[in-house]
C-alpha cells in the first residue's frame, strides 16, 4: 500500500473537486475554462512550473540574440534559447525507450500551457472527409462523429480564441470565423508565383494570432514574428494566457497544482475513478487529489501512460483498457523539408519584415489520391525572409557563390559583402502529411524502466510504411517543382529510398495522437464519441489521444473543439447525475 505524508497538501486533498484535470495544454486549458465557468470546482494538475509570458522573469519575447550567451543556440532548448517550451525530446530523469529497430522521438513540454506556448499556431479545422477516411479509402477507421458534430465547437473556438484566415470554399478545408490575414512577405510572393505555375493551391495562412482585437483582455499582434516565444500581450493562442488566466479572472474555482507529476488515476472498489495521485517535484513526495470526475489532458502518450499505469483489481490491464487498445494506433504527422536559393532575392533592401510568427501563406492538400501511389495528403508550410540572426547565422556564408559563378571561401571585407548579398535569399518548404493509424504503432509500459519519480515509463514501437514513404517522396518532387517555377536552385540532394525519402523520424512533427482512440465499439476503442472511457464513465480524455485519424492538419484546433464538446457533455451528465 502507498504511504501518504501528512502535509498541507494532504489537507488540501481532503477537498473533493468536481473535476480533476491532468494537464494544462490545449485540451486541459479548454476543459478548465468551460468546466469552471459552469461553476464546478476544478483542480488542474500540471507536471511543470507556472508560466506567464508577460512575467519579466520568464519572458523571452523581444530579447536580442546577444542576451543569450549562446546566441539562442538550440543545444539547451531544442528550438533555441528563446523558444517557450520547457522540455524537449529528451528530459533529464524522464526517459522512455523503444523496441529494437524502431524509433519514436517524444516531445514533452512541462509548463502551464504545455506545448501551446511555443507551437506554430497553425489552426485548422478537420474537414468532412477527415472524419470518414475508411469510408473513402478503406484504410484505418472512421470516427464515430462527423464534421457536423464538431462544427459548432470549431465556430465557438474561432470566436473565443481568434484565428486569421480567409473564406476559400475548398471542400475539405472548412472556412470559419476568421480575422483578416496579414499581407504576404516578399519571398512568399515568389512562392505564390511558383505554386500557381505548377498548379499547387496556395491561400492565406490560418493562424491563431490576433491581427485584430477580439476582446479587452488580450492585446493585438505587434508583428515581432516571435509567437514561438509566447506573446507577452497574449496576442497569440496559448492555453495559459487565453483559457486558464481568463477563467481565473472570471472568478472560477480553480486550484492549480504545478510541478506535479501524475502517477495514476485512483479507483474505488466499483472501479470508478476517485481522483489521482501525483508526485510533487518540489519535495518528491506523493499526494492524492480527490475528484468526482477525472479529465486526462496530459498529451496523447502521457495520458495513455497514466491509464496503463493505473492498474487495479477491476482494471488489471490498466484503467479503461479492457479493449487492449490504449497506447495503440499512435500516429504522428509525416514530415519532410527542403530549402532553395532564389537568385532573384539576392541583394535585398532591408526593412522590418518580421510579420506574424509564422508564414503568411499556406498550401492545403490539393490533389486526388486516385492518381497517386499513397493514400491521404499533406499540406505545406514555408519559411524565409529577413529574419533576426541567431546562432548558426553566417555559417558557410558564401557557399551559394557556387551557383552564381563566384568563389566560395575567403575572409575580410568580401565576406561581409557576401553575407549581405545572400541575406534573405533562401526559402524553405516543409510538408506535413497524414500517417495511417496502425495497431502495431504503439506505446506501452516498459516493464524494466522507471523515471526519477518511480513511475514506469513508456516504450515505443513505431515504424513508417510505404504509405508514408511514398508521400515523402512526393513532397520532395513538389518542393523541387515549386522551387524551379520560382526561379530557384533547390539545395541538397533529393533523399532516396535508403533515407526513407527524407521522412522525419516519427514524433519529430509533434502531432502525435491516437492512443485512446474513440469509437462506438468498446472492444475496438478506448473512448466513446464524447471522449469518455467505455469502461469508466467518470474518466474523460481531452488531448489528442481519442483521435481516430490525424488528417493532414495540425491537431490543436480539433483538440480544443473536442475538449469543449466533452466539457459540455460532462456538465450535462453531472446535472443529470449520470456520472
Amino acid at each position, binding site marked *: 500500500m502507498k504511504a501518504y505524508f501528512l502535509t498541507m497538501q494532504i489537507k488540501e486533498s481532503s477537498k473533493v473537486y468536481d473535476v480533476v484535470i491532468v494537464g494544462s495544454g490545449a485540451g486541459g486549458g479548454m476543459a478548465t475554462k468551460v468546466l469552471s465557468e459552469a461553476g464546478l470546482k476544478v483542480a488542474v494538475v500540471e507536471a511543470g512550473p507556472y508560466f506567464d509570458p508577460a512575467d519579466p522573469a520568464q519572458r523571452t519575447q523581444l530579447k536580442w540574440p546577444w542576451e543569450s550567451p549562446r546566441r539562442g543556440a538550440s543545444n539547451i532548448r531544442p528550438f533555441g534559447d528563446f523558444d517557450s517550451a520547457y522540455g524537449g525530446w529528451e528530459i533529464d530523469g524522464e526517459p522512455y525507450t523503444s523496441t529494437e529497430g524502431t524509433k519514436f522521438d517524444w516531445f514533452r513540454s512541462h509548463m502551464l500551457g504545455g506545448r501551446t506556448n511555443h507551437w506554430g499556431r497553425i489552426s485548422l479545422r478537420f474537414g468532412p472527409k477527415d472524419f470518414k477516411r475508411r469510408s473513402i479509402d478503406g484504410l484505418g477507421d472512421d470516427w464515430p462523429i462527423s464534421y457536423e458534430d464538431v462544427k459548432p465547437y470549431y465556430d465557438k473556438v474561432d470566436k473565443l480564441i481568434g484565428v486569421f484566415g480567409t473564406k476559400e470554399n475548398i471542400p475539405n478545408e472548412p472556412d470559419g470565423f476568421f480575422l483578416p490575414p496579414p499581407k504576404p512577405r516578399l519571398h512568399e510572393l515568389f512562392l505564390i508565383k511558383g505554386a500557381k505555375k505548377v498548379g499547387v493551391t496556395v491561400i492565406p495562412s490560418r493562424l491563431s494570432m490576433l491581427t485584430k482585437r477580439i476582446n479587452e483582455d488580450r492585446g493585438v499582434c505587434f508583428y515581432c514574428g516571435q509567437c514561438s516565444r509566447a506573446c507577452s500581450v497574449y496576442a497569440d493562442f496559448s492555453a495559459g494566457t487565453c483559457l486558464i488566466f481568463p477563467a481565473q479572472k472570471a472568478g472560477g474555482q480553480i486550484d492549480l497544482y504545478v510541478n506535479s507529476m501524475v502517477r495514476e488515476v485512483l479507483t474505488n472498489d466499483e472501479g470508478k475513478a476517485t481522483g489521482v495521485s501525483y508526485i510533487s517535484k518540489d519535495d518528491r513526495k506523493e499526494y492524492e487529489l480527490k475528484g468526482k470526475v477525472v479529465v486526462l489532458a496530459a498529451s496523447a502518450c502521457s495520458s495513455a501512460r497514466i491509464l496503463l499505469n493505473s492498474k487495479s483489481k477491476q482494471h488489471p490491464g490498466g484503467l479503461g483498457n479492457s479493449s487492449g487498445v490504449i497506447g495503440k494506433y499512435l500516429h504522428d504527422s509525416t514530415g519532410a523539408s527542403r530549402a532553395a536559393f532564389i537568385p532573384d532575392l539576392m541583394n535585398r533592401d532591408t526593412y522590418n519584415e518580421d510579420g506574424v510568427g509564422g508564414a503568411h501563406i499556406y498550401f492545403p492538400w490539393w490533389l486526388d489520391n486516385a492518381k497517386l501511389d499513397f493514400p491521404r495528403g499533406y499540406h505545406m508550410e514555408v519559411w524565409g525572409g529577413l529574419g533576426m*540572426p541567431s546562432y548558426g547565422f*553566417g555559417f558557410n556564408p558564401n557557399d551559394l557563390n557556387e551557383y552564381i559563378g563566384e568563389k566560395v*571561401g575567403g575572409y575580410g571585407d568580401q565576406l561581409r559583402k557576401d553575407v549581405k548579398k545572400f541575406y534573405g535569399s533562401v526559402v524553405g518548404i516543409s510538408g506535413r502529411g497524414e500517417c495511417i493509424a496502425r495497431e502495431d504503432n504503439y506505446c506501452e509500459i516498459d516493464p524494466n524502466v522507471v523515471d526519477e519519480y518511480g513511475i514506469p515509463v513508456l516504450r515505443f514501437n513505431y515504424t513508417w510504411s510505404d504509405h508514408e514513404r511514398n508521400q515523402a517522396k512526393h513532397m520532395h518532387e513538389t518542393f523541387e517543382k515549386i522551387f524551379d517555377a520560382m526561379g530557384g536552385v533547390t539545395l541538397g540532394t533529393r533523399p532516396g529510398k535508403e533515407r526513407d525519402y527524407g521522412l522525419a523520424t516519427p514524433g519529430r512533427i509533434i502531432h502525435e495522437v491516437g492512443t485512446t482512440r474513440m469509437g462506438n465499439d468498446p472492444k475496438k476503442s478506448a473512448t466513446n464519441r464524447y471522449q469518455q472511457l467505455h469502461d469508466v464513465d467518470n474518466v474523460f480524455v481531452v488531448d489528442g489521444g481519442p483521435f481516430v485519424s490525424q488528417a493532414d492538419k495540425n491537431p490543436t484546433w480539433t483538440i480544443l473543439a473536442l475538449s469543449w464538446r466533452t466539457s459540455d457533455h460532462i456538465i450535462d451528465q453531472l446535472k443529470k447525475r449520470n456520472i
Partner: protein
Amino acid sequence: MDRRDTLKSLLIGGIGSGLILTGCQPSPEEKTLLEKPSENQYGRTEKEKAHDAKLLGEKFFNDHELATIAVLCDLILPATSTAGSATDAGVPEFIEFIVKDITYHQTPIRGGLMWLDNRTNKQFDKNFISCSASQQKQLMDEIAWPDDAKPEVEQGVRFFTQMRNLVLTGYYTTRMGIDDLGYKGNMPNVWDGVPQEVLDKHGVAYDPEWLAKCVDQEKRTTIAQWDDEGNLIS
C-alpha cells in the same frame, strides 16, 4: 563589480541575480559589458541559470589560444569605415563561451590553433600571432579557399571554416553585427506589406484579389464581429 566575481558570489551565495545586477549599474564606459551575455536576463529556468553560471565561471582557452583567436577574428572580420571588427564586437568572448557550451567545438578548435602554429613554425619559425601581417595573410590564403587548397592543408581548411563560422555567427548576433547587416525588426511594428519600391526592384506585385482579403490596419483595434455566415463586419 567584475562579472566573474558576480558569478562567484552567485554560485556561493545562491542569491537572486536580479539583486546583484541592479546593485551595480554599469557606468557609461562599461557599456560594452551590456553587449556581453547578460546572465539570467532572458527568461531562464533555475536549472538553465545554473548551467549558464557554471560555464561563465569556467575558463577553457589559455591566454595564447585566446590571443590567437583574437588575431583570427580580426583577419576574418576587420573593422570597416562603418562597422567595428570582430574583436570590437566581443567575438573572442563568445567563442570562449560557445566551446564550453557546445563541446564538440573544443577539440577541433583547440587542435586547429595548434595546427596553425605548427604550420607557421615550419614556414616562418614563429607562432601564428608573432608572424607579420603578410605572413599571416599568406597562411590564410592557403586555407580560406576550399576549392583551391592543397591536399596537405586540408585539416587547416576544415579548422578555418569552423572558426570563420563561429566568428561570423558571433559577430552577426551582436548589436554591431545586426546594425551592419541591416536587420530592422525585433520591435513593435505594424506590418502592412512589402514596400512598393522593393516590389518593383524584384519585379513582383500583390494580387489585388488577395490583398482585398488582408487586414485593414486602420481597424486593427476595433473588436471583431461577424455575421452568422462568418463574414467580418467590423
